[in-house]
Protein backbone atom coordinates (compact mmCIF):
# COMPACT_ATOMS: atom_id res chain seq x y z
CA UNK A 1 0.00 0.00 0.00
CA UNK A 2 2.89 2.29 0.75
CA UNK A 3 4.93 1.30 -2.28
CA UNK A 4 2.65 3.10 -4.75
CA UNK A 5 2.86 6.70 -3.50
CA UNK A 6 6.52 6.24 -2.55
CA UNK A 7 7.48 5.22 -6.04
CA UNK A 8 5.45 8.08 -7.52
CA UNK A 9 7.33 10.51 -5.27
CA UNK A 10 10.65 9.12 -6.42
CA UNK A 11 9.57 9.41 -10.04
CA UNK A 12 8.47 13.01 -9.44
CA UNK A 13 11.90 13.73 -7.93
CA UNK A 14 13.52 12.38 -11.09
CA UNK A 15 11.41 14.62 -13.34
CA UNK A 16 12.36 17.66 -11.22
CA UNK A 17 16.02 16.78 -11.85
CA UNK A 18 15.50 15.90 -15.49
CA UNK A 19 14.26 19.31 -16.65
CA UNK A 20 17.31 21.34 -15.55
CA UNK A 21 19.57 18.58 -16.84
CA UNK A 22 17.98 18.66 -20.30
CA UNK A 23 17.93 22.45 -20.43
CA UNK A 24 21.58 22.54 -19.38
CA UNK A 25 22.50 20.06 -22.12
CA UNK A 26 20.49 21.74 -24.89
CA UNK A 27 20.53 18.57 -26.96
CA UNK A 28 21.36 15.15 -25.57
CA UNK A 29 21.05 11.59 -26.78
CA UNK A 30 18.56 9.25 -25.15
CA UNK A 31 21.40 6.90 -24.23
CA UNK A 32 23.48 9.58 -22.50
CA UNK A 33 20.50 10.90 -20.52
CA UNK A 34 19.44 7.38 -19.54
CA UNK A 35 22.95 6.68 -18.31
CA UNK A 36 23.04 9.89 -16.26
CA UNK A 37 19.76 8.93 -14.57
CA UNK A 38 20.50 5.24 -14.00
CA UNK A 39 17.50 4.13 -16.10
CA UNK A 40 17.24 2.27 -19.39
CA UNK A 41 16.75 4.29 -22.61
CA UNK A 42 13.10 3.24 -23.04
CA UNK A 43 12.32 4.41 -19.51
CA UNK A 44 14.00 7.72 -20.36
CA UNK A 45 11.92 8.00 -23.54
CA UNK A 46 8.72 7.51 -21.52
CA UNK A 47 9.82 10.10 -18.96
CA UNK A 48 10.53 12.66 -21.68
CA UNK A 49 7.24 11.93 -23.45
CA UNK A 50 5.31 12.31 -20.21
CA UNK A 51 6.97 15.66 -19.64
CA UNK A 52 4.79 17.09 -22.40
CA UNK A 53 1.61 16.68 -20.34
CA UNK A 54 3.09 18.65 -17.45
CA UNK A 55 2.64 22.36 -17.16
CA UNK A 56 0.99 25.35 -15.59
CA UNK A 57 -2.60 25.17 -14.39
CA UNK A 58 -5.28 26.05 -16.93
CA UNK A 59 -6.97 29.38 -16.35
CA UNK A 60 -10.61 30.32 -16.17
CA UNK A 61 -11.92 26.80 -16.58
CA UNK A 62 -10.02 26.10 -19.78
CA UNK A 63 -7.63 23.28 -20.31
CA UNK A 64 -4.01 24.24 -20.61
CA UNK A 65 -2.86 25.82 -23.83
CA UNK A 66 0.13 24.35 -25.64
CA UNK A 67 2.51 27.03 -24.44
CA UNK A 68 1.52 26.31 -20.84
CA UNK A 69 3.04 22.85 -21.16
CA UNK A 70 6.53 21.49 -21.54
CA UNK A 71 7.23 20.51 -25.11
CA UNK A 72 9.96 18.62 -26.89
CA UNK A 73 11.13 18.19 -30.46
CA UNK A 74 9.18 15.05 -31.29
CA UNK A 75 10.86 14.48 -34.67
CA UNK A 76 14.31 14.47 -33.14
CA UNK A 77 13.19 12.06 -30.43
CA UNK A 78 11.33 9.68 -32.75
CA UNK A 79 13.81 9.65 -35.60
CA UNK A 80 17.20 10.27 -34.01
CA UNK A 81 16.75 9.44 -30.31
CA UNK A 82 17.76 12.98 -29.36
CA UNK A 83 16.12 14.99 -26.60
CA UNK A 84 15.57 18.74 -26.96
CA UNK A 85 13.15 20.76 -24.84
CA UNK A 86 11.42 23.34 -27.03
CA UNK A 87 9.14 24.91 -24.43
CA UNK A 88 9.70 25.11 -20.73
CA UNK A 89 7.30 26.44 -18.12
CA UNK A 90 9.47 26.37 -15.00
CA UNK A 91 11.78 24.04 -13.06
CA UNK A 92 14.77 25.36 -15.01
CA UNK A 93 16.99 25.45 -11.94
CA UNK A 94 18.32 22.41 -10.12
CA UNK A 95 16.53 21.65 -6.84
CA UNK A 96 18.50 21.78 -3.61
CA UNK A 97 19.99 18.58 -2.27
CA UNK A 98 17.79 16.74 0.20
CA UNK A 99 19.26 16.31 3.68
CA UNK A 100 19.80 12.66 2.82
CA UNK A 101 21.59 13.31 -0.46
CA UNK A 102 23.87 15.80 1.27
CA UNK A 103 24.57 13.38 4.15
CA UNK A 104 25.42 10.54 1.75
CA UNK A 105 27.85 12.73 -0.19
CA UNK A 106 29.36 14.33 2.93
CA UNK A 107 30.21 10.91 4.38
CA UNK A 108 31.69 9.82 1.05
CA UNK A 109 33.83 12.95 1.03
CA UNK A 110 35.26 12.15 4.43
CA UNK A 111 36.43 8.81 3.10
CA UNK A 112 37.76 10.38 -0.11
CA UNK A 113 39.74 12.80 2.07
CA UNK A 114 41.85 9.88 3.34
CA UNK A 115 43.32 9.35 -0.15
CA UNK A 116 46.81 10.78 -0.56
CA UNK A 117 46.61 13.91 -2.68
CA UNK A 118 42.89 14.46 -2.10
CA UNK A 119 42.54 15.27 1.60
CA UNK A 120 45.50 17.64 1.66
CA UNK A 121 44.44 19.58 -1.44
CA UNK A 122 41.92 21.84 0.33
CA UNK A 123 39.22 20.72 -2.09
CA UNK A 124 37.39 18.65 0.51
CA UNK A 125 37.05 21.47 3.04
CA UNK A 126 35.47 23.74 0.45
CA UNK A 127 33.10 21.00 -0.64
CA UNK A 128 31.92 20.22 2.88
CA UNK A 129 30.75 23.83 3.27
CA UNK A 130 29.14 24.00 -0.16
CA UNK A 131 27.18 20.78 0.27
CA UNK A 132 25.91 21.84 3.68
CA UNK A 133 24.74 25.16 2.19
CA UNK A 134 23.14 23.48 -0.82
CA UNK A 135 20.93 21.18 1.28
CA UNK A 136 17.25 21.91 1.87
CA UNK A 137 17.61 21.13 5.58
CA UNK A 138 20.47 20.22 7.89
CA UNK A 139 21.80 16.76 7.01
CA UNK A 140 22.15 14.22 9.81
CA UNK A 141 25.74 14.01 10.95
CA UNK A 142 27.42 10.96 9.46
CA UNK A 143 31.04 10.85 10.49
CA UNK A 144 33.71 8.68 8.93
CA UNK A 145 36.69 8.74 11.27
CA UNK A 146 39.88 9.86 9.54
CA UNK A 147 42.69 7.39 9.04
CA UNK A 148 46.39 8.23 8.96
CA UNK A 149 48.32 8.32 5.71
CA UNK A 150 51.59 6.35 5.68
CA UNK A 151 54.58 5.97 3.37
CA UNK A 152 53.22 2.87 1.66
CA UNK A 153 49.94 4.58 0.74
CA UNK A 154 51.76 7.67 -0.47
CA UNK A 155 54.12 5.57 -2.61
CA UNK A 156 51.25 3.62 -4.14
CA UNK A 157 49.44 6.87 -4.97
CA UNK A 158 52.59 8.25 -6.58
CA UNK A 159 53.06 5.09 -8.66
CA UNK A 160 49.42 5.21 -9.83
CA UNK A 161 49.82 8.85 -10.87
CA UNK A 162 53.16 8.32 -12.58
CA UNK A 163 52.12 5.05 -14.24
CA UNK A 164 55.18 3.14 -13.05
CA UNK A 165 55.64 -0.24 -11.40
CA UNK A 166 56.19 -0.56 -7.65
CA UNK A 167 58.65 -2.86 -5.98
CA UNK A 168 58.08 -4.08 -2.41
CA UNK A 169 58.44 -6.88 0.09
CA UNK A 170 55.20 -8.77 0.65
CA UNK A 171 54.59 -10.79 3.77
CA UNK A 172 51.44 -12.88 3.32
CA UNK A 173 50.22 -14.68 6.45
CA UNK A 174 51.67 -18.17 6.90
CA UNK A 175 54.01 -17.79 3.92
CA UNK A 176 57.60 -16.68 3.46
CA UNK A 177 58.18 -13.04 2.49
CA UNK A 178 58.60 -12.37 -1.23
CA UNK A 179 59.83 -9.45 -3.28
CA UNK A 180 57.28 -8.27 -5.81
CA UNK A 181 57.22 -5.89 -8.72
CA UNK A 182 53.67 -4.82 -9.47
CA UNK A 183 51.95 -2.63 -12.06
CA UNK A 184 49.38 -0.87 -9.87
CA UNK A 185 45.83 -0.91 -11.25
CA UNK A 186 43.47 -0.12 -8.40
CA UNK A 187 43.45 0.60 -4.68
CA UNK A 188 40.41 -0.78 -2.86
CA UNK A 189 39.48 0.65 0.50
CA UNK A 190 36.97 -1.53 2.31
CA UNK A 191 36.15 -1.72 6.02
CA UNK A 192 39.13 0.50 6.72
CA UNK A 193 41.54 -1.91 5.01
CA UNK A 194 43.59 -0.89 1.98
CA UNK A 195 44.27 -3.35 -0.80
CA UNK A 196 46.29 -2.90 -3.97
CA UNK A 197 45.27 -4.81 -7.05
CA UNK A 198 47.83 -5.00 -9.81
CA UNK A 199 49.72 -7.04 -12.31
CA UNK A 200 52.33 -9.04 -10.41
CA UNK A 201 55.46 -9.58 -12.50
CA UNK A 202 56.45 -12.60 -10.37
CA UNK A 203 53.14 -14.43 -10.78
CA UNK A 204 52.40 -12.99 -14.23
CA UNK A 205 48.80 -12.43 -13.14
CA UNK A 206 46.58 -9.92 -11.33
CA UNK A 207 47.03 -10.20 -7.58
CA UNK A 208 45.64 -8.42 -4.53
CA UNK A 209 47.97 -7.14 -1.80
CA UNK A 210 46.92 -5.94 1.65
CA UNK A 211 48.88 -2.73 2.15
CA UNK A 212 49.56 -3.49 5.84
CA UNK A 213 51.65 -6.44 4.63
CA UNK A 214 53.71 -4.33 2.24
CA UNK A 215 57.10 -2.94 3.27
CA UNK A 216 60.32 -1.60 1.69
CA UNK A 217 58.23 0.01 -1.01
CA UNK A 218 59.88 1.98 -3.80
CA UNK A 219 58.89 3.33 -7.18
CA UNK A 220 60.69 1.81 -10.16
CA UNK A 221 61.30 3.63 -13.41
CA UNK A 222 59.58 0.83 -15.33
CA UNK A 223 56.46 2.09 -17.08
CA UNK A 224 53.43 -0.09 -16.42
CA UNK A 225 52.33 -2.46 -19.17
CA UNK A 226 49.19 -3.82 -17.53
CA UNK A 227 47.57 -0.64 -16.22
CA UNK A 228 44.30 -1.20 -18.06
CA UNK A 229 43.95 -4.71 -16.72
CA UNK A 230 40.40 -5.76 -15.90
CA UNK A 231 40.59 -6.47 -12.22
CA UNK A 232 38.17 -8.82 -10.50
CA UNK A 233 36.04 -7.63 -7.60
CA UNK A 234 37.92 -7.57 -4.36
CA UNK A 235 36.62 -10.78 -2.84
CA UNK A 236 35.53 -12.50 -6.00
CA UNK A 237 36.06 -16.26 -5.67
CA UNK A 238 38.97 -17.61 -7.71
CA UNK A 239 39.41 -20.98 -9.40
CA UNK A 240 42.18 -21.81 -7.00
CA UNK A 241 39.88 -21.52 -3.96
CA UNK A 242 39.36 -24.56 -1.79
CA UNK A 243 36.10 -25.65 -0.20
CA UNK A 244 35.79 -25.89 3.57
CA UNK A 245 32.78 -27.07 5.57
CA UNK A 246 31.98 -24.99 8.61
CA UNK A 247 29.32 -24.82 11.30
CA UNK A 248 28.53 -21.62 13.15
CA UNK A 249 25.89 -19.93 15.24
CA UNK A 250 23.30 -18.48 12.84
CA UNK A 251 23.62 -15.12 14.59
CA UNK A 252 27.30 -14.96 13.56
CA UNK A 253 26.60 -15.38 9.85
CA UNK A 254 27.30 -11.70 9.15
CA UNK A 255 30.66 -11.91 10.93
CA UNK A 256 31.66 -14.87 8.79
CA UNK A 257 30.80 -12.99 5.61
CA UNK A 258 33.75 -10.73 6.42
CA UNK A 259 36.19 -13.53 5.70
CA UNK A 260 34.79 -15.91 3.14
CA UNK A 261 32.42 -16.44 0.26
CA UNK A 262 29.58 -18.62 1.51
CA UNK A 263 28.25 -21.17 -0.98
CA UNK A 264 25.51 -23.27 0.49
CA UNK A 265 23.96 -23.24 3.92
CA UNK A 266 21.66 -25.49 5.83
CA UNK A 267 20.04 -24.52 9.08
CA UNK A 268 20.03 -26.78 12.11
CA UNK A 269 18.39 -25.06 15.07
CA UNK A 270 20.44 -22.07 16.17
CA UNK A 271 23.30 -23.23 13.95
CA UNK A 272 24.06 -23.16 10.25
CA UNK A 273 26.30 -25.46 8.27
CA UNK A 274 27.90 -24.05 5.14
CA UNK A 275 30.41 -24.80 2.47
CA UNK A 276 32.68 -21.80 2.07
CA UNK A 277 35.47 -21.07 -0.37
CA UNK A 278 38.78 -19.62 0.73
CA UNK A 279 42.04 -18.90 -1.04
CA UNK A 280 44.04 -20.83 1.50
CA UNK A 281 42.49 -23.36 3.89
CA UNK A 282 45.18 -22.52 6.45
CA UNK A 283 43.80 -19.01 6.79
CA UNK A 284 40.58 -20.28 8.34
CA UNK A 285 42.34 -21.17 11.60
CA UNK A 286 42.55 -17.41 12.19
CA UNK A 287 38.79 -17.04 11.75
CA UNK A 288 38.24 -20.02 14.05
CA UNK A 289 40.14 -18.46 16.96
CA UNK A 290 38.82 -14.95 16.25
CA UNK A 291 35.26 -16.23 16.50
CA UNK A 292 36.35 -18.50 19.38
CA UNK A 293 33.57 -21.03 19.91
CA UNK A 294 31.24 -19.51 17.31
CA UNK A 295 32.78 -21.24 14.30
CA UNK A 296 33.66 -24.90 13.91
CA UNK A 297 35.62 -26.18 10.95
CA UNK A 298 34.24 -29.60 10.00
CA UNK A 299 36.28 -30.51 6.93
CA UNK A 300 38.84 -30.97 5.52
CA UNK A 301 40.52 -32.65 8.45
CA UNK A 302 43.77 -30.75 7.89
CA UNK A 303 42.05 -27.38 8.32
CA UNK A 304 40.32 -28.66 11.44
CA UNK A 305 43.59 -29.86 12.92
CA UNK A 306 45.45 -26.69 12.09
CA UNK A 307 42.76 -24.70 13.93
CA UNK A 308 43.22 -26.83 17.03
CA UNK A 309 47.00 -26.50 16.81
CA UNK A 310 46.72 -22.73 16.32
CA UNK A 311 44.56 -22.31 19.43
CA UNK A 312 46.82 -24.67 21.39
CA UNK A 313 49.96 -22.75 20.44
CA UNK A 314 48.29 -19.50 21.42
CA UNK A 315 47.29 -20.87 24.81
CA UNK A 316 50.74 -22.32 25.45
CA UNK A 317 52.07 -18.77 25.84
CA UNK A 318 49.95 -18.26 28.94
CA UNK A 319 50.79 -21.51 30.74
Amino acid sequence: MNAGPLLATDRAALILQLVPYLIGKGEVSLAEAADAFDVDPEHMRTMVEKLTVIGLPGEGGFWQMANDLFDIDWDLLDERDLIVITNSVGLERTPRLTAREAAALLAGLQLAATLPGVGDSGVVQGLLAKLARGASSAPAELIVAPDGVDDVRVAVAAALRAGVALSFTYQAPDAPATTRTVDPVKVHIASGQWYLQGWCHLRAAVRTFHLDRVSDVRLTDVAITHGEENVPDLFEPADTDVAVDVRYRAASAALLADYVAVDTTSVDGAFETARVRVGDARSLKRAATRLGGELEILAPESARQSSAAWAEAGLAQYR
Partner: protein
Amino acid sequence: MAKEPTRTAPEERLVNLVVALMATEQGLTKDTILSSVAGYREQSEAGASKDALEKMFERDKENLRGLGIPVETIGDYADPDDLRDARYRIPTAEYELPADIDFTPAEIAVLNLAGGVWSESSMSADARSGLRKIRALGIDVDAPIIGYSPRINLREASFAPLHRAIEQGRVVEFSYLKAGEDAAVVRSIQPLALLEYEARWHVYGIDLAAGEPRTFLLARISTEVRITRTSFDLALRDGAGERALTGLTDLAARQRALLEVEPGTEASLRLSRRARPADQGIHVPYVDIHILADELASYGPEVRVVEPVALRDEVILRLERALALHTDVRTTA
Protein backbone atom coordinates in the same frame (compact mmCIF):
# COMPACT_ATOMS: atom_id res chain seq x y z
CA MET B 1 -4.71 23.60 -29.08
CA ALA B 2 -6.22 22.13 -25.95
CA LYS B 3 -5.19 18.77 -24.56
CA GLU B 4 -7.66 15.97 -24.08
CA PRO B 5 -8.16 15.20 -20.41
CA THR B 6 -6.62 11.84 -19.55
CA ARG B 7 -5.98 10.10 -16.28
CA THR B 8 -2.85 11.63 -14.83
CA ALA B 9 -0.17 9.51 -13.17
CA PRO B 10 0.53 10.55 -9.55
CA GLU B 11 4.09 11.69 -10.34
CA GLU B 12 2.72 13.99 -13.05
CA ARG B 13 0.23 15.43 -10.57
CA LEU B 14 3.08 16.05 -8.10
CA VAL B 15 5.23 17.81 -10.70
CA ASN B 16 2.26 19.84 -11.95
CA LEU B 17 1.72 20.92 -8.35
CA VAL B 18 5.35 22.02 -8.03
CA VAL B 19 5.15 23.99 -11.29
CA ALA B 20 1.93 25.69 -10.16
CA LEU B 21 3.18 26.54 -6.66
CA MET B 22 6.45 27.93 -7.97
CA ALA B 23 4.74 30.07 -10.59
CA THR B 24 2.72 31.97 -7.98
CA GLU B 25 4.00 34.82 -5.84
CA GLN B 26 1.00 35.31 -3.57
CA GLY B 27 0.12 31.61 -3.31
CA LEU B 28 -2.83 29.50 -4.47
CA THR B 29 -5.77 28.47 -2.33
CA LYS B 30 -6.64 24.82 -1.98
CA ASP B 31 -9.82 25.35 -4.03
CA THR B 32 -7.87 26.89 -6.90
CA ILE B 33 -5.37 24.05 -6.81
CA LEU B 34 -8.01 21.32 -6.80
CA SER B 35 -9.96 22.87 -9.65
CA SER B 36 -7.09 23.93 -11.91
CA VAL B 37 -3.93 21.84 -11.43
CA ALA B 38 -3.87 18.89 -13.82
CA GLY B 39 -4.17 15.68 -11.88
CA TYR B 40 -6.66 17.08 -9.36
CA ARG B 41 -8.81 18.82 -11.90
CA GLU B 42 -9.79 15.73 -13.88
CA GLN B 43 -10.73 13.90 -10.71
CA SER B 44 -12.60 16.94 -9.49
CA GLU B 45 -14.58 17.08 -12.73
CA ALA B 46 -15.12 13.32 -12.72
CA GLY B 47 -16.98 13.84 -9.46
CA ALA B 48 -14.39 12.82 -6.84
CA SER B 49 -15.45 13.98 -3.37
CA LYS B 50 -13.90 17.17 -2.10
CA ASP B 51 -12.83 15.31 1.01
CA ALA B 52 -10.91 12.70 -1.00
CA LEU B 53 -9.22 15.39 -3.10
CA GLU B 54 -8.21 17.38 -0.03
CA LYS B 55 -6.69 14.28 1.51
CA MET B 56 -4.79 13.65 -1.71
CA PHE B 57 -3.48 17.21 -1.63
CA GLU B 58 -2.36 16.85 2.00
CA ARG B 59 -0.49 13.66 1.13
CA ASP B 60 1.12 15.20 -1.93
CA LYS B 61 2.25 18.20 0.14
CA GLU B 62 3.86 15.91 2.70
CA ASN B 63 5.53 13.83 -0.01
CA LEU B 64 7.00 16.95 -1.60
CA ARG B 65 8.28 18.15 1.77
CA GLY B 66 9.83 14.71 2.15
CA LEU B 67 11.79 15.46 -1.03
CA GLY B 68 13.10 18.62 0.62
CA ILE B 69 10.75 20.87 -1.38
CA PRO B 70 9.63 23.83 0.75
CA VAL B 71 5.84 23.99 0.42
CA GLU B 72 4.94 27.15 2.31
CA THR B 73 1.55 27.72 3.93
CA ILE B 74 0.38 31.33 4.19
CA GLY B 75 -2.41 31.36 6.74
CA ASP B 76 -4.81 33.95 8.03
CA TYR B 77 -2.77 36.62 9.82
CA ALA B 78 -5.51 37.18 12.36
CA ASP B 79 -5.77 33.49 13.17
CA PRO B 80 -2.77 31.45 12.02
CA ASP B 81 -4.52 28.19 12.90
CA ASP B 82 -7.37 28.91 10.52
CA LEU B 83 -6.31 27.27 7.28
CA ARG B 84 -9.64 27.59 5.43
CA ASP B 85 -8.34 30.45 3.31
CA ALA B 86 -4.70 29.41 3.43
CA ARG B 87 -2.58 29.91 0.34
CA TYR B 88 0.23 27.63 -0.71
CA ARG B 89 3.42 28.40 -2.60
CA ILE B 90 6.99 27.20 -3.12
CA PRO B 91 9.49 30.06 -2.73
CA THR B 92 11.93 29.78 -5.61
CA ALA B 93 14.91 30.85 -3.52
CA GLU B 94 14.43 27.98 -1.10
CA TYR B 95 13.70 25.44 -3.82
CA GLU B 96 16.70 26.07 -6.03
CA LEU B 97 20.28 25.18 -5.44
CA PRO B 98 21.64 28.65 -4.56
CA ALA B 99 22.94 30.34 -7.70
CA ASP B 100 26.17 31.41 -6.02
CA ILE B 101 27.23 27.83 -5.21
CA ASP B 102 29.44 26.63 -7.98
CA PHE B 103 31.84 23.79 -8.16
CA THR B 104 35.28 23.71 -9.73
CA PRO B 105 36.19 20.86 -12.09
CA ALA B 106 38.55 19.50 -9.41
CA GLU B 107 35.72 19.51 -6.87
CA ILE B 108 33.43 17.61 -9.22
CA ALA B 109 36.12 14.97 -9.72
CA VAL B 110 36.36 14.45 -5.94
CA LEU B 111 32.56 14.42 -5.60
CA ASN B 112 32.31 11.74 -8.27
CA LEU B 113 34.57 9.58 -6.15
CA ALA B 114 32.65 10.43 -2.96
CA GLY B 115 29.32 9.58 -4.59
CA GLY B 116 30.39 6.02 -5.31
CA VAL B 117 31.45 4.85 -1.86
CA TRP B 118 28.21 3.40 -0.52
CA SER B 119 27.73 -0.32 -0.75
CA GLU B 120 24.24 -0.13 0.72
CA SER B 121 21.59 0.57 -1.88
CA SER B 122 19.50 3.35 -0.35
CA MET B 123 22.49 5.50 0.69
CA SER B 124 24.03 4.79 -2.70
CA ALA B 125 20.87 5.97 -4.48
CA ASP B 126 20.85 9.16 -2.40
CA ALA B 127 24.49 9.86 -3.16
CA ARG B 128 23.97 9.33 -6.89
CA SER B 129 20.87 11.51 -6.89
CA GLY B 130 22.75 14.32 -5.13
CA LEU B 131 25.60 13.98 -7.59
CA ARG B 132 23.17 14.21 -10.50
CA LYS B 133 21.81 17.50 -9.19
CA ILE B 134 25.29 18.93 -8.98
CA ARG B 135 26.25 17.65 -12.42
CA ALA B 136 23.11 19.30 -13.83
CA LEU B 137 24.80 22.62 -13.10
CA GLY B 138 26.76 21.81 -16.24
CA ILE B 139 30.26 22.04 -14.88
CA ASP B 140 33.25 20.56 -16.66
CA VAL B 141 34.95 17.71 -14.89
CA ASP B 142 38.69 17.31 -14.37
CA ALA B 143 40.18 14.03 -15.43
CA PRO B 144 38.62 11.47 -13.07
CA ILE B 145 40.61 10.35 -10.06
CA ILE B 146 41.53 6.92 -11.28
CA GLY B 147 42.87 3.93 -9.47
CA TYR B 148 40.77 4.21 -6.30
CA SER B 149 37.70 2.34 -5.18
CA PRO B 150 36.84 3.50 -1.66
CA ARG B 151 33.83 1.74 -0.11
CA ILE B 152 31.80 2.29 3.02
CA ASN B 153 30.35 -1.03 4.08
CA LEU B 154 27.02 -0.97 5.78
CA ARG B 155 25.39 -4.19 6.85
CA GLU B 156 23.46 -3.14 9.93
CA ALA B 157 19.72 -2.90 9.41
CA SER B 158 19.55 -0.42 12.30
CA PHE B 159 21.38 2.25 10.28
CA ALA B 160 18.38 3.40 8.21
CA PRO B 161 15.91 3.93 11.09
CA LEU B 162 18.61 5.63 13.19
CA HIS B 163 19.44 7.94 10.30
CA ARG B 164 15.76 8.82 9.89
CA ALA B 165 15.37 9.43 13.64
CA ILE B 166 18.36 11.79 13.65
CA GLU B 167 16.87 13.74 10.72
CA GLN B 168 13.50 14.03 12.40
CA GLY B 169 14.79 14.51 15.94
CA ARG B 170 12.92 11.57 17.45
CA VAL B 171 13.72 9.38 20.43
CA VAL B 172 14.47 5.75 19.53
CA GLU B 173 14.29 2.51 21.48
CA PHE B 174 16.23 -0.67 20.88
CA SER B 175 17.60 -3.67 22.74
CA TYR B 176 21.32 -3.56 23.19
CA LEU B 177 23.48 -6.54 23.99
CA LYS B 178 26.49 -5.24 25.83
CA ALA B 179 29.56 -7.31 25.05
CA GLY B 180 30.22 -10.00 27.62
CA GLU B 181 26.67 -9.85 28.96
CA ASP B 182 24.00 -12.39 28.14
CA ALA B 183 20.83 -10.34 28.40
CA ALA B 184 20.01 -7.41 26.15
CA VAL B 185 18.80 -4.22 27.85
CA VAL B 186 16.28 -1.86 26.27
CA ARG B 187 17.83 1.55 25.66
CA SER B 188 16.02 4.76 24.99
CA ILE B 189 18.16 7.46 23.37
CA GLN B 190 18.03 10.77 21.54
CA PRO B 191 20.19 9.85 18.54
CA LEU B 192 22.47 12.70 17.43
CA ALA B 193 25.09 11.31 15.05
CA LEU B 194 26.24 8.16 13.27
CA LEU B 195 29.92 7.48 13.26
CA GLU B 196 32.11 4.98 11.47
CA TYR B 197 35.15 4.32 13.63
CA GLU B 198 37.65 1.54 12.92
CA ALA B 199 35.29 0.22 10.24
CA ARG B 200 32.37 -0.15 12.63
CA TRP B 201 29.24 1.96 12.77
CA HIS B 202 28.32 3.58 16.07
CA VAL B 203 25.38 5.74 17.09
CA TYR B 204 26.03 8.59 19.47
CA GLY B 205 23.19 10.03 21.49
CA ILE B 206 21.81 11.00 24.86
CA ASP B 207 20.92 7.88 26.83
CA LEU B 208 17.71 8.94 28.56
CA ALA B 209 18.16 6.57 31.51
CA ALA B 210 21.68 7.80 32.23
CA GLY B 211 20.94 11.40 31.21
CA GLU B 212 24.32 11.47 29.48
CA PRO B 213 25.77 10.99 26.03
CA ARG B 214 26.66 7.40 25.14
CA THR B 215 28.04 5.65 22.08
CA PHE B 216 26.57 2.33 20.90
CA LEU B 217 27.87 -0.18 18.39
CA LEU B 218 25.24 -0.86 15.74
CA ALA B 219 26.38 -4.47 15.50
CA ARG B 220 25.22 -5.03 19.08
CA ILE B 221 21.70 -3.70 18.60
CA SER B 222 19.75 -6.92 18.87
CA THR B 223 16.23 -5.82 17.89
CA GLU B 224 14.63 -3.51 15.40
CA VAL B 225 15.05 0.18 16.17
CA ARG B 226 11.70 1.69 17.11
CA ILE B 227 11.24 5.37 16.31
CA THR B 228 8.95 6.84 18.98
CA ARG B 229 6.68 9.85 18.70
CA THR B 230 8.73 11.76 21.26
CA SER B 231 10.76 14.47 19.59
CA PHE B 232 13.74 16.44 20.84
CA ASP B 233 15.35 19.77 20.06
CA LEU B 234 17.25 19.49 16.78
CA ALA B 235 19.82 21.97 18.11
CA LEU B 236 21.17 19.11 20.25
CA ARG B 237 22.65 17.72 17.04
CA ASP B 238 24.95 20.68 16.48
CA GLY B 239 28.54 19.50 16.65
CA ALA B 240 27.45 16.05 17.83
CA GLY B 241 29.55 14.24 15.22
CA GLU B 242 32.66 16.04 16.42
CA ARG B 243 31.84 15.25 20.08
CA ALA B 244 31.26 11.59 19.24
CA LEU B 245 34.58 11.35 17.42
CA THR B 246 36.46 13.12 20.20
CA GLY B 247 34.85 10.78 22.72
CA LEU B 248 36.10 7.66 20.95
CA THR B 249 39.54 9.11 20.22
CA ASP B 250 39.95 10.11 23.89
CA LEU B 251 38.86 6.66 24.99
CA ALA B 252 41.43 5.04 22.69
CA ALA B 253 44.10 7.35 24.11
CA ARG B 254 43.26 6.29 27.68
CA GLN B 255 43.00 2.55 27.06
CA ARG B 256 46.02 0.75 25.78
CA ALA B 257 47.06 -2.87 25.73
CA LEU B 258 50.63 -4.04 26.30
CA LEU B 259 51.42 -6.80 23.82
CA GLU B 260 54.38 -8.93 22.82
CA VAL B 261 54.42 -9.75 19.13
CA GLU B 262 56.47 -12.16 17.08
CA PRO B 263 58.35 -10.06 14.50
CA GLY B 264 57.58 -10.63 10.83
CA THR B 265 54.21 -12.23 11.48
CA GLU B 266 50.72 -11.17 10.45
CA ALA B 267 50.13 -9.90 14.00
CA SER B 268 53.21 -7.73 13.91
CA LEU B 269 52.34 -6.27 10.49
CA ARG B 270 48.72 -5.56 11.27
CA LEU B 271 49.23 -4.18 14.78
CA SER B 272 52.30 -2.07 14.14
CA ARG B 273 50.33 0.55 12.18
CA ARG B 274 48.45 1.42 15.36
CA ALA B 275 51.13 0.63 17.94
CA ARG B 276 53.72 2.60 19.86
CA PRO B 277 56.88 0.90 21.10
CA ALA B 278 56.97 0.05 24.82
CA ASP B 279 59.78 -1.19 27.10
CA GLN B 280 58.60 -4.75 26.75
CA GLY B 281 56.64 -5.10 23.52
CA ILE B 282 54.18 -2.61 22.05
CA HIS B 283 51.29 -0.46 23.25
CA VAL B 284 48.10 -0.66 21.18
CA PRO B 285 45.22 1.75 21.90
CA TYR B 286 41.68 0.35 21.80
CA VAL B 287 38.09 1.40 22.15
CA ASP B 288 36.35 -1.90 22.77
CA ILE B 289 38.06 -4.69 24.68
CA HIS B 290 35.97 -7.41 23.05
CA ILE B 291 36.67 -6.30 19.51
CA LEU B 292 40.41 -6.15 20.23
CA ALA B 293 40.23 -9.59 21.91
CA ASP B 294 38.60 -11.01 18.74
CA GLU B 295 41.42 -9.66 16.62
CA LEU B 296 44.20 -10.77 18.99
CA ALA B 297 42.74 -14.29 19.25
CA SER B 298 42.96 -14.57 15.46
CA TYR B 299 46.74 -14.15 15.71
CA GLY B 300 47.09 -17.30 17.86
CA PRO B 301 50.72 -17.70 18.96
CA GLU B 302 51.86 -14.56 17.15
CA VAL B 303 50.86 -12.27 20.02
CA ARG B 304 50.82 -12.49 23.81
CA VAL B 305 48.77 -10.09 25.94
CA VAL B 306 50.72 -8.78 28.91
CA GLU B 307 48.06 -6.41 30.18
CA PRO B 308 45.34 -5.51 30.94
CA VAL B 309 44.34 -8.75 32.62
CA ALA B 310 40.74 -8.45 31.40
CA LEU B 311 41.93 -8.43 27.80
CA ARG B 312 44.25 -11.34 28.44
CA ASP B 313 41.37 -13.34 29.92
CA GLU B 314 39.14 -12.58 26.95
CA VAL B 315 41.80 -13.77 24.49
CA ILE B 316 42.43 -16.95 26.49
CA LEU B 317 38.69 -17.60 26.61
CA ARG B 318 38.43 -17.44 22.80
CA LEU B 319 41.45 -19.69 22.30
CA GLU B 320 40.12 -22.24 24.80
CA ARG B 321 36.72 -22.33 23.16
CA ALA B 322 38.21 -22.71 19.70
CA LEU B 323 40.48 -25.51 20.95
CA ALA B 324 37.61 -27.35 22.63
CA LEU B 325 35.50 -27.13 19.51
CA HIS B 326 38.19 -28.58 17.27
CA THR B 327 39.62 -31.35 19.45
CA ASP B 328 36.38 -32.96 20.66
CA VAL B 329 34.42 -35.35 18.55
CA ARG B 330 32.95 -33.49 15.60
CA THR B 331 29.38 -32.25 15.94
CA THR B 332 28.27 -34.01 12.80
CA ALA B 333 30.15 -37.27 12.28
